[in-house]
């Protein structure tokens, strides 16, 4: 949109028939962006405005801060917010490290490379609900595969999803399992773009593989890492389908995340106004995290 207006402004400076052409261009430009503009207005801008309005009005009309005050006393909100921070702090780095390790592995000249790549990528192709259903079975107390395996080693079973200490970690495992394969693809693409001369040079200089990885590969992958990190961070606040399937946020909200709580407030408790405030909190959190990531990492990135 901004580019269109720049063109239009530039053209308008030319006098005479050029002005008419400029006007035509402007109209043409607007016509070209109109379809996306309509869609964005209807499905992004309008909901944003509506959320803002809902957040600061009372259910029976009138401007109010009552929803904001409610957040202060809402223990469930505090719990799910902390849960979400823990969830992000664990799943984002873990899936990135695993994705990188898998990418390095399947980038090498090894047997069955295509098969391995496919295997690592498979969880990504599965719908989240399907993945969650599979893991729900894995975690079944006493006769799920995990508990059965424990029994083989003489260990007692565990109610993985029904115990507050393990419910959230169990869900984090599913998320990492599902996300890592997706991020691997980006790292793999990054690795494939790397000039083989770099590695030859390192070898000639007698640098160890670890040194080469640390000083050459990793820095060159930083743009990929930034991208993956932002995507992973957003996903950690946006993905909640598995919670519906696996725990419904329980026990006692131990595995509930912010977006799941917003869903509950909006669609189970029918409190659109409170849900609107919570949505603003979610969006603000995401913006802040993205901003921090760009600020901190930008300086350490070498774009080629």
């Amino acid at each position, binding site marked *: 949109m901004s580019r269109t207006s720049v063109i239009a402004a530039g053209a308008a400076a030319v006098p005479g028939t050029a002005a008419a052409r400029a006007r035509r261009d402007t109209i043409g430009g607007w016509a070209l962006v109109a379809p996306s503009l309509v869609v964005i207005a209807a499905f992004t801008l309008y909901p944003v405005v509506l959320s803002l309005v809902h957040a600061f009005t009372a259910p029976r009309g009138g401007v109010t801060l009552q929803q904001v005050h409610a957040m202060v006393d809402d*223990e*469930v909100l505090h719990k799910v917010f902390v849960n979400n921070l823990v969830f992000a702090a664990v799943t984002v780095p873990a899936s990135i490290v695993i994705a990188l390790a898998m990418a390095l592995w399947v980038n090498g000249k090894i047997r069955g490379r295509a098969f391995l790549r496919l295997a690592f990528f498979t969880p990504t192709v599965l719908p989240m609900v399907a993945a969650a259903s599979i893991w729900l079975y894995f975690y*079944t*107390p*006493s*006769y799920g595969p995990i508990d059965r395996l424990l029994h083989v080693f003489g260990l007692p*079973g565990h*109610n993985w*999803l*029904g*115990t*507050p200490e393990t419910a959230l970690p169990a869900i984090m495992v599913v998320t990492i399992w599902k996300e890592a394969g997706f991020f691997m693809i980006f790292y793999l693409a990054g690795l494939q773009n790397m000039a083989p001369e770099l590695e030859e040079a390192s070898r000639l200089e007698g640098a160890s593989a670890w040194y080469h990885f640390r000083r050459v590969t990793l820095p060159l992958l930083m743009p990929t890492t930034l991208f993956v990190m932002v995507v992973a961070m957003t996903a950690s606040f946006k993905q909640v389908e598995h919670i519906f399937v696996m*725990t*419904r946020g*329980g*026990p*006692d*909200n*131990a595995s509930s995340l912010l977006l799941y709580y917003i869903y*509950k407030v909006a*669609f*189970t*408790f*029918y*409190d659109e106004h409170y849900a609107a405030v919570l949505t603003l909190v979610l969006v603000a959190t995401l913006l802040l995290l993205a901003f921090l990531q760009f600020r901190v990492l930008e300086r350490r990135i070498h774009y080629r």
Partner: protein
Amino acid sequence: MSIASRHRLRALAPLAFAALAALSTLARAADPVELQLLFPIAVGGPLTQIMDKLTARYHATHPGVEVKAIYSGTYDETMTKARAQFKAGQPPDVLIASAVELFNLRDLDMIVAYEDALKGSDTSWTKRFYEAFMVNSTQDGKTWGLPFQRSTIIQYYNKDAFRKAGLDPDHPPATWEELRDMALKLRDAGGVKFGLQIPSDNFGDWLFSALAWQNGLALVSPDGKHAYFNDPRAVEALQYWVDLGKAGAVPKGSVSWATTPKDFIEGKVAMMWTTTGNLTNVRKQAKFDFGVSPLPAHRQPGSPTGGANLYVFKTGDTAKERAAAEFAKWMSDPEQAAEWSIATGYVGSSQAAYDTPAMKAYVASFPAAVVARDQLAHYTRSLGLHGNGRATAALSDAIQAALTGTKTPKEALDGAQKTADGVLARFQK
């Protein structure tokens, strides 16, 4: 195609159009009223097929009406969908939703009373249902919901496991003490992993209301404006449940509503508390000798009623509302009530349903089918409160917190009471 024949066709075209127009006018005159029915499923078994069979039969006997039955997920999801449709100005016509939703449906002004939808017609048939179900269905002298898949909680037990543990298979636990002792004996006898499962991840508030009621307490007031979650009798009841877990009579942590029937069917647990709506599914799948019994008593016996009612939505189209109410009435007629009860295990909604030949034959061959119905003698109402489920959600959280040991029963229930009071305050004015 030759040019000549194309000409002939062109000449015929206006005629053909006229004929089509006439046909479509005819068709419109006979167009059936189309009703949309949303229904949830909370138990096992192929219920969507049975529902399709019922609606097809209604269409066959009432050619002017066609009912589109749409399976809409769990009870919660069904309410979400109905409410979203209502907000979008396209409400369903008939909704099967939890009996506890009556307050919320009326607070949101989403439904019409049967007496209003059927104005001018005889509605004395609304008196035919069991009173235990009607306390969640009538308000202000009008009928807002018709009992459809209503239930009580019953105790399922594996008789083979009882024999193995040296227990009398014809004497299921009848008191809280017996329940605890037998569960431990069953577990220690081996073969099963646990003696007893009482689900708590979903419907935990409902199962807890059974324990509270057995301890002499109804957790909610009849007007849905007051909750008594931290009454000493409730704290005692929750303490009993927590102690069952500490003793190892039930699994530690929260227990899944969805997998508990599976655990029972697969012989992993010897006894379970769940809705009678699972009865037919368990009967079809269990490969061992099982029995069902009323829940054990403490200060008194009994169970809350549960399950779902048929509601007619306020669409503003009185003809449609009438058609919807007539369909809902038909669904609750003795024949259909008996058929649904036999297919699922839910309680037939009226005595008349039990007087049908089909039901008589069924009960004669399977006496367990009336255990839930007979338990209505000691019923308490479903956990209906104003405030869109927020208060009962707090209760569910509290139960899970106590069962998983993060809070004591007293702390947990005090917290739930505080939330409930906050939510209900504006309805108490």
